């Protein structure tokens, strides 16, 4: 079969299976879902009907409930919870999303996602305004932020290029080493990165008269960015590129034989995840109001992995779920257990998840739901995800 024909078939089959897949993952009310009829093989569904179907599915689905909850949340929660729990989960979730995209759909576990976020954060500090007037260039935000994101995407592409030419298992080691190299660079260099002190007083700009660092505006900003990232990932994995990437994850040799450039797809995946991590990094710099070597040290590199695995790398929502659990533990642990033993708790939870539920909390949920459902329906033509 020619590659183009195969791609078309994958497109239509993917759209159909995605509908069935979404119904099977985490749903408890399958009767409300209206799966669209699978198009005949070879027939290309038109873009317009595709979008309309998607919109209809969205409105009828639980996604709307969650979205409403997220929007209403800051109105009922205290500013502290909105900012420290809500916004921080969204921002960390975005960075973890970039990792779970690479890991879940690309099969490459990169520990350098926080590094990419750090590059973006430092870039926005150096190019924009910070406490170190002799370092910061003072560019306006609408120049500094896009340039910072571009720099971070380039960095991510470079990291990807360095990491993809070897086996998958090397990726963890190599990205960890690169991440630590960046940490030492920003720690030791004072002329650009201001070394140990880092760059402080990083504020989002006052646009449209709104102070964007206030809890509710910042939460809204993070929510919009997080939703955009989520939608981007969901869309990309059903696009030809995403399908090819998953194919490369499963069997690179076969994909290569089919004519796909394995290296190019992987590097492009790194670039895309770099985009998400970069936006997350800029938001993180604004959230912390500072960028220091501690933000990109080994601890945080591993924490992002913990967050992604905690939630489950198979679905983009897992990253945000993991981030929420992580932030809740981090913020309220001192009230419940010894804050000093936070690492033990989070490490233990991570270990438990990897040992007993490698798909993370989402996987646990899916299994629970499947078990509950199996009691009801004896016959079902819905393909259950394992």
């Amino acid at each position, binding site marked *: 079969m020619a590659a183009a024909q195969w791609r078309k078939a994958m497109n239509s089959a993917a759209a159909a299976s995605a509908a069935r897949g979404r119904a099977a993952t985490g749903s408890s009310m399958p009767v409300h879902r209206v799966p669209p009829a699978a198009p005949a093989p070879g027939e290309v569904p038109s873009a317009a009907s595709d979008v309309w179907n998607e919109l209809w599915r969205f409105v009828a689905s639980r996604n709307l409930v*969650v979205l409403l909850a997220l929007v209403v*949340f800051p109105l009922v*929660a*205290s500013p*502290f919870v909105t900012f420290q729990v809500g916004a921080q989960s969204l921002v960390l979730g975005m960075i973890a999303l970039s990792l779970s995209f690479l890991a879940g759909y690309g099969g490459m576990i990169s520990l350098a996602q926080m590094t990419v976020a750090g590059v973006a954060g430092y870039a926005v500090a150096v190019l924009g305004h910070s406490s170190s007037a002799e370092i910061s260039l003072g560019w306006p935000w609408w120049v500094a932020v896009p340039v910072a994101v571009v720099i971070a995407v380039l960095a991510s592409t470079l990291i990807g290029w360095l990491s993809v030419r070897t086996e998958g298992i090397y990726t963890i080691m190599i990205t960890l080493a690169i991440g630590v190299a960046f940490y030492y660079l920003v720690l030791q260099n004072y002329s650009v990165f201001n070394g140990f002190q880092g760059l*402080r007083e990083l504020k989002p700009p006052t646009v449209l008269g709104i102070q964007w660092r206030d809890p509710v505006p910042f939460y809204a900003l993070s929510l919009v960015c997080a939703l955009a990232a989520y939608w981007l990932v969901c869309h990309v994995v059903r696009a030809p590129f995403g399908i090819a990437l998953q194919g490369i994850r499963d069997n690179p040799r076969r994909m290569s034989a089919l004519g796909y450039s394995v290296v190019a797809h992987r590097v492009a995946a790194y670039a895309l995840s770099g985009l998400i991590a970069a936006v997350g990094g800029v938001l993180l710099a604004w959230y912390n109001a500072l960028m*220091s070597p501690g933000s990109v040290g080994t601890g945080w590199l591993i924490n992002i992995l913990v967050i992604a695995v905690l939630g489950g790398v198979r679905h983009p929502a897992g990253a*945000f779920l993991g981030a929420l*659990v992580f932030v809740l533990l981090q913020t309220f642990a001192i009230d419940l257990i010894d804050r000093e033993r936070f690492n033990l708790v989070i490490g233990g939870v991570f270990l438990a998840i990897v040992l007993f539920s490698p798909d993370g909390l989402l996987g646990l*949920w899916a299994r629970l739901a499947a078990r509950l459902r199996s009691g009801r329906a004896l016959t079902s033509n819905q393909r259950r995800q394992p």
Partner: protein
Amino acid sequence: MKVTTTKRIWVRSIVGAAAATALWGGAWAQQGQPVKIGLLATLEGPFAAGGADGMRGAELAVKQRGGVVAGRKIEVIKASSDAKPDVAVNSTRKLVEQDKVDIMVGPLSGGEGIAVKDYSKTQPQVTFINGGSGAQGTTLTNPSPNFFRFNTDGGQWMVGLGKAALAKGYKRTMVIAEDYAFPYSQVQGFMAEYCKAGGKVPVKAWVPLGGKDYSSVIATIPKDVDALLVVLGGADAVNFLTQYENAGGDKPMLGGSITVSQDVLNYKGKRRDSLVGTLSAGPLADAYDGADWKAFVADYQKTYPVSAGGFPSPSLFAYVYYVNMKAALDGLAAVNGDLSGNQAKYREALSKMTLKTPNGDVRLDGNRQAIGTTFVTEVVKDSQGNLFNKVHSKVDNVDQLLGMKAEEFKIGSRDVPACP
């Protein structure tokens, strides 16, 4: 997704209940209500032992008042960090915005102090008092109107050492220190005096943070220096001494404020006797025979015996946290517990008061930075052959500019000051 929603509902309702209670409770007059003091120290990471002792020092100050000040009960809410500025700000934010503390005491490390100072500018309704951080920039550059530091900074801790070193005949000194803000301030404090009086520092060796291999640095020690100024933590100093001795080195040492600690005094190497005469400087001296100091040490040892995890003698961290917490409480007593009007009276009391500490009086300067006492100590051997730090001299009224004019004072960095 349901997990998230459920969790969100749970969190929201708890928070809503807490907010309602806080609103309702806060509507009352403050008289008689407990005063909430947040306490932040590094309980994780490399400074964990110091952070734990810092908390002990702060709690000692509370215990000395019986847990009550001006008729109000003292409620201490603890938080921890791991010497990273962003974690410190997160923990502080929780204490200030979630637990709604009135006064905040902390943090411990220099980098955290600067980040918390930045945060304090966004929370004008809370008074922030330092814990143990000793970075010069905290109160010198862009000071915050509600951030008070009742302990002297790293540079102030070295005043007097330069003169003492020259008096011993050390005309050329090499500096070996870790490459970050606190050692910079210590070296600056030493060199400001030393260079002015004619001393020379031909080489400064900045060891990367966390590095334990001093062999290369030791190899670069020139033959013609008279002494080595070693600004490393106590245990790292032992490491350095061992490696130095093994490499055949024999030059005398000058110590930073945390260098000549119990670890170094218990050094069992062959060159132990050469440690006698080592000069050092800091805000306290274990063997100081002032009555207030002795009473403080006895109180610490009684409240926190070694079996319960205390140190044999209060450490630097215990002392500075004690001083800062004592200041917070003394200020409260001075205004009779009145924190109304955005704590205006309280802050004025803090700015104007003379704090009585175990080592003398402390006042604040225009940037709310302490002016206090520095001790220069010397290692001596007692009759049983044990080494201890004897007080060599005492310098009072050390201010943050080290007696220099504002124009000539420069915050310490890798290359500043320099007198090769």
